[in-house]
Each structure stands twice: as C-alpha cells, then as structure tokens.
C-alpha cells in the first residue's frame, strides 16, 4: 500500500468526522431555535388575552339627587358623589326581572370594582352631563373577562367555573343588545399595579425599571470604566493589583442576593437611603454589574494594539492622553458590549431587590428615583404568584414588555457600537 492510498483512507475518516460535527452543530442550533420559538409562542398565546378587555355598556342616569350632590355642584362636590349607588340603580333598571337580593349581588358582580370610578371620571370630565342619561362603557369583572375570552370556560359546567349560569344568561342578554364588547387594552400600558386584575397595568413597573436602570448605568459605567482603565493602563503590576484582579473576577460570580444583603446593611441601614426606591435599587445593581463591566472593559483595552498607544506616546502625548484619546475610543465597542451585558443582567434581577424592599405591592407610578417603586421582573414575580386566573395572562404580557425593553436596549447598544467601531 503506497502513501497516497494511506492518506486517502484516513482522509475518508477525517471528512466523515467533519460532516458529523457540522451535522451536530446544525442540530444544536435547530434545537435551540425550536425551544426559542416554543417559548415565544407560549408567551404570546398566553399573553394575548391580557391585551384585550371586556367592556359592558350601561345606561347611566347622572341624577343629582341619586348622586347626593347639588344640581350646581362644583368639581370637589362631584368627586364625593355616590357613584356606586347610581351604578347599581342603573344596572338593576336594565334587568328589572332580577329581584332577589342574592341575584342582585351576582348581577353587580359582573362589573369591575373600578366601574364607579369610571363613572366619576367621565362626569368630572364633562360636568354638563349632570342630570342627563348617558350610555357609558365600564369594565367587566376579571372573572367575566376570562369567561368571555376563553372558549373552554364557555363549554365548562357551572361547578368548574367562577361564574354562575344566571350570570351567563345576563351576559348573553347584554351581548344580544350589543352592550358587551372586547376592546384593545391600552390601560395595561398606562396604569399601575392593582389587586383587581382588570385594572392592573405595567406602567409603574416600567417606569421603576427605567429609573433603576438609569441609576445603575449612571453609576456603574463611569465607575467601571475608570477602574478598568486604571487597572489596565496605570496600576503597577504587583501583588496588590493581582489581589484586586482576583477579587474583581470572584465578585462577578457572587450570588446576586448577597449584593442585596450588602445594600440593605450599607445603603439603607447605614447611609439611610430610602428603601424600595430606584435609587437604592440602582446602587445595589451597580455593585452587581461593576465586575462584569470592569472585566469586559479590561479585555477590550487589552485588545487595542499597543502600536497605537506607542505612536501617541512617541508623538509626545502624555500617558493620560494616549489612553483616553486612543486606547479608550478604540476599546469603546467592547466596553459598551460589556456594559450592555451588565445592564441586561441587572434588568432581569429580582433577588437583590428582595432585600431592599423593591418586592412590594406599589400602586403609584414613581415620579423620581427616591419614590417607592417596583421593577418589571418583580412585577412578573408578583403577578405569577397571584391566584386570580386573569393575572396569568398579565404575567405573560409583562414578560413580553420586559423582553421588548431588553431588545430596545440591545438595539441601542448595537447602534452605539457601530458608531464607535473603527477599522485599522
């Protein structure tokens, strides 16, 4: 057997290995894509109901006497009217055959507990409606909403669902009269959290996340960059810098809840930073993201060709000038990538916020970094924990909002990176 034949035989085996590896690689990518598609499809299907809401149209008589206000009442007086009574009377007037006290109660339960505030708000917006009869759309209760949107619940037996057969009959009558509609749910994006699923929205958590990330970015980017530049370009190579480097690397692997404990002990207990606020949340997340940013920035600085810095130094640039005019701009794409990875990590974090009181039911939309706030992942966690069926859809919808937030941030990073990227 000659050499060529020998090579040819082994070649067959080598080519087979290569083909096998490529096949495995493709398979791995395919499986990953399938999982991603499954995950996204599952989230979107589950979230869909949260973007629609059931509304019921009622004929409301804004009777001054029934509201318990003067005919010429001002805004302040109108605010204190008995809208609940008006709502009840209007509803019962539409269903005159419902007389039993228990049935009346069940009938009233068709409506969201937020319905009376809607009556109030529409009257306050147009006070001239006082004394007239108006067709007003109000929100349905979350159980009704779930029933309307779910085909399986419609077919289910009375004992398997939360609404009774007589309520179903009333709903059918409303539907016949064209007084039942599902509309696009804008309030999910504009209102904040509530105990009532049909009233709960994401705005508070979204704003809280935005503020928290802003604080994190404002603190961790300059600190991380400065630390990385100093350690990489200026620090003397000795035992101390070695120790610092080892510690920075280890900090990147510390469980995030530990940073929460540190934040509680230092920022809240010692420095008295207000708890539950984006400020302290951002500070804690800064502790968590700093190692990521420092490590990535140092790697980026290390990969800048030394010839560029040499050129600047040989021109008579000082060290600071050589570093900040040449090394840092060239490393910027890498530094930004590290920062975005750190921010994305911070964005998805719940555990450290648990310790500093950001895992809380907060109804108000935060107006600043010292207001009580919650963040998206915490909101998802809280909703996933709620027993009401309607919160399941809200949970998925909140996940979508979180993912969109993340995608927007990454997009921004890609754009910035493209802007800073230079060839040499």
């Amino acid at each position, binding site marked *: 057997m000659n050499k060529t034949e020998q090579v040819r035989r082994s070649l067959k085996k080598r080519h087979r290995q290569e083909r096998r590896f490529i096949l495995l690689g493709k398979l791995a990518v395919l499986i990953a894509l399938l999982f991603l598609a499954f995950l996204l499809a599952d989230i979107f299907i589950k979230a869909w109901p949260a973007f629609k809401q059931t509304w019921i149209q009622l004929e409301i008589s804004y009777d001054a006497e029934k509201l318990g206000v003067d005919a010429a009442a001002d805004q302040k007086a109108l605010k204190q009217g008995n809208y609940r009574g008006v709502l009840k009377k209007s509803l019962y007037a539409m269903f005159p055959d419902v007389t039993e006290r228990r049935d009346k109660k069940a009938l009233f339960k068709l409506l969201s507990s937020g319905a009376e505030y809607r009556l109030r708000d529409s009257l306050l917006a147009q006070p001239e409606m006082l004394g007239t009869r108006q067709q007003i759309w109000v929100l349905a209760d979350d159980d009704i909403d779930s029933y309307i949107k779910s085909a399986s619940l419609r077919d289910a037996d009375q004992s398997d669902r939360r609404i009774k057969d007589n309520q179903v009959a009333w709903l059918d009558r409303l539907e016949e009269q064209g007084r039942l509609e599902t509309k696009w749910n804008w309030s999910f994006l504009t209102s904040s959290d509530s105990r009532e699923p049909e009233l709960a929205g994401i705005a508070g958590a979204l704003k809280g996340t935005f503020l928290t990330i802003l604080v994190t970015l404002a603190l961790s980017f300059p600190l991380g960059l400065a630390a990385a530049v100093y350690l990489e370009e200026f620090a003397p190579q000795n035992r101390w810098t070695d120790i610092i480097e080892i510690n920075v690397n280890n900090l990147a692997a510390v469980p995030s809840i530990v940073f929460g404990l540190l934040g509680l002990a230092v920022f809240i207990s010692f420095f008295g930073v207000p708890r539950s606020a984006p400020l302290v949340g951002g500070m804690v997340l800064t502790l968590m993201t700093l190692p990521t940013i420092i490590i990535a920035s140092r790697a980026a600085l290390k990969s800048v060709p030394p010839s560029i810095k040499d050129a600047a130094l040989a021109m*008579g640039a000082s060290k600071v*000038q050589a570093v900040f005019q040449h090394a840092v701009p060239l490393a910027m794409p890498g530094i930004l990538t590290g920062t975005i990875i750190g921010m994305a990590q911070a964005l998805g974090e719940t555990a450290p916020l648990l310790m500093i009181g950001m895992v809380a039911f907060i109804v108000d939309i935060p107006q600043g970094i010292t207001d009580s706030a919650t963040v998206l992942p915490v909101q998802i966690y809280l909703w996933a924990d709620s027993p009401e069926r309607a919160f399941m859809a809200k949970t998925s919808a909140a996940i979508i909002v979180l993912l969109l937030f993340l995608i927007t941030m990454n997009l921004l990073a890609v754009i910035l990176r493209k802007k800073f990227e230079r060839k*040499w």
Partner: protein
Amino acid sequence: MTRAAVDASAASQTAEAVQEAEAVELVRPQETADTAGIHQEISGTVGTPFSDNAKMSTRHVDVFYGDKQAIFDVSLDIGEKEVIALIGPSGCGKSTYLRTLNRMNDTIPGCRVTGDFQLDDEDIYAKEMDPVLLRARVGMVFQKPNPFPKSIYDNVAYGPRLHGFASNRAELDEIVVSSLQRAGLFEEVKDRLNVPGTGLSGGQQQRLCIARTIAVSPEVILMDEPASALDPIATATIEELIDELRENYTIAIVTHSMQQAARVSQRTAYFHLGKLVEVGETNQIFTNPAHQLTENYITGRFG
C-alpha cells in the same frame, strides 16, 4: 568618569578589540554560523563611536529586562544632521538601544536603563526631563506603520494639536500640508485628506507616520526598521525620503537590510548580542570592516 576619560578609555579599548579581531581570524576553522564567532566574547567597540558634532551622545548604556541584560556597556554618539544606521542580527539589542533614546522603554514594565544620555548636553534621564517633552524633540517611526484610525489630516494634525503649535485652522492646515509635502505624500493624498489613514497602502501609511512625526518638528527622528513591512518600491521611496530629511533632521535608523544601511546612512554601528562591536563610516564598514564579526555579518555568514 568624566567625558574625556570615557573617550580615552574607549580609544584604548578600540585598539585591544582590533587585536582580538585578528586573533579570531586565525582560529576560525570553518564557516558555520556557530564557528563564525556568534558566541565569542566581545570587549569594547572598534572604530569611531564618537562624533565631534554629536547631537545625542550615550555612554556606558546598560539595559535590563527584569534580570536579563539586553544591552552591555554601549557608548555611541549620533552626529548632528547625519543618518546613522544600527545593524546587527535579530535580538542584538539595536531596537532596544534605539528606544532608550526617547525613553520609549519607560513604558515596558520591568525595563531598567542605566548609563549617561545627552541630548545637546542635557541629560535625558534626569529627573527634571519630562519624557513627554523629550519625545516631542526626539520623534519615532515604528517598524509596522501605525497610523491612528483617524483621517489623514487628523493623523498629521495630532502632534501640533497636542502641543498647541497652531493657533488657528489656517496655521494647522499649513503645518499638515508642509509635513505631508516633506514626507512626499501630499501629491498622492491631497484630494482625500479626510479619508482614514488606515485605508492607505503600506508604504503610504509609513510615509504618513513620518509626516506625523515631522509635523511636531523634532530634532532627532528614530526609525525602527521603517521599511521592513514594505515592498521594494515603497522601500525605495522611503529611502529617498530619509535622504532628503537628512538636511533638517538627525536620524538614527535600525535596519535589517544591509543594502538599505549602505544606501541611506553616513555612519553605521554594528551590534552583536547586546554589545556594540564596531562603528564607522558606512563606506568603511561595508568595504573594509575592522572587526571579524562585522565582516562575517555583512558577508552573510550569519544574520
């Protein structure tokens, strides 16, 4: 040791070295790299390391990287407005020596330099000497063309901006244009001063780096194998340029190409294993070297 004493002892060392070179000639049995004297002991420098009209002078230079000594007791003058070529086999310390002249070795951790360095009778390693000022006076062109990833204009304008040489845009324009002209690059790039310098060809990039260096009007230009990454045509252009620059600048050039050294330089210094073996007029070094090692190197027995 005073300067005069140094000169005297160097002269006596020279005489010894000549004798030793002759001794080596006698015992050389075969022409292999090893027996051609690569590992032989070198004591002192042959020839004329000192110049009457020295721009820079160095005495007893030792350079250490950590525990390893890279340069051993090198004493050499660089004359005003002359081109001196530093030649020698790889790892002989010629680049290291060159980098001591504008203190670029300061940036290398663990590098230690001792000896006496003068630029116009100023001690360049003195505490009062700011390396930033020194490097503005002693510029450097590197082996690999390293333009900044900026426009051609910004590359040349970098130094003048850094040191505040131009008070307005017109002055800056003038410095940029005249530097590019002196580097022989202006005609090729005058229509595209705003394109990145990194988009030029290798030879053009190196001339851009030279233009960038002369834009700060240094007194001395150090060149570390400036043409080693270039093709023969680009190399020829660079060599012509060096010849023209000699009118205004003092130039020290490290090169691996002996033809290049012969073409561009007036004096040549031959380094071997961290020691300065021989210095002389370029003509004399290439036609009639005094030291056996020099002869072996220039005739291609090793290198």
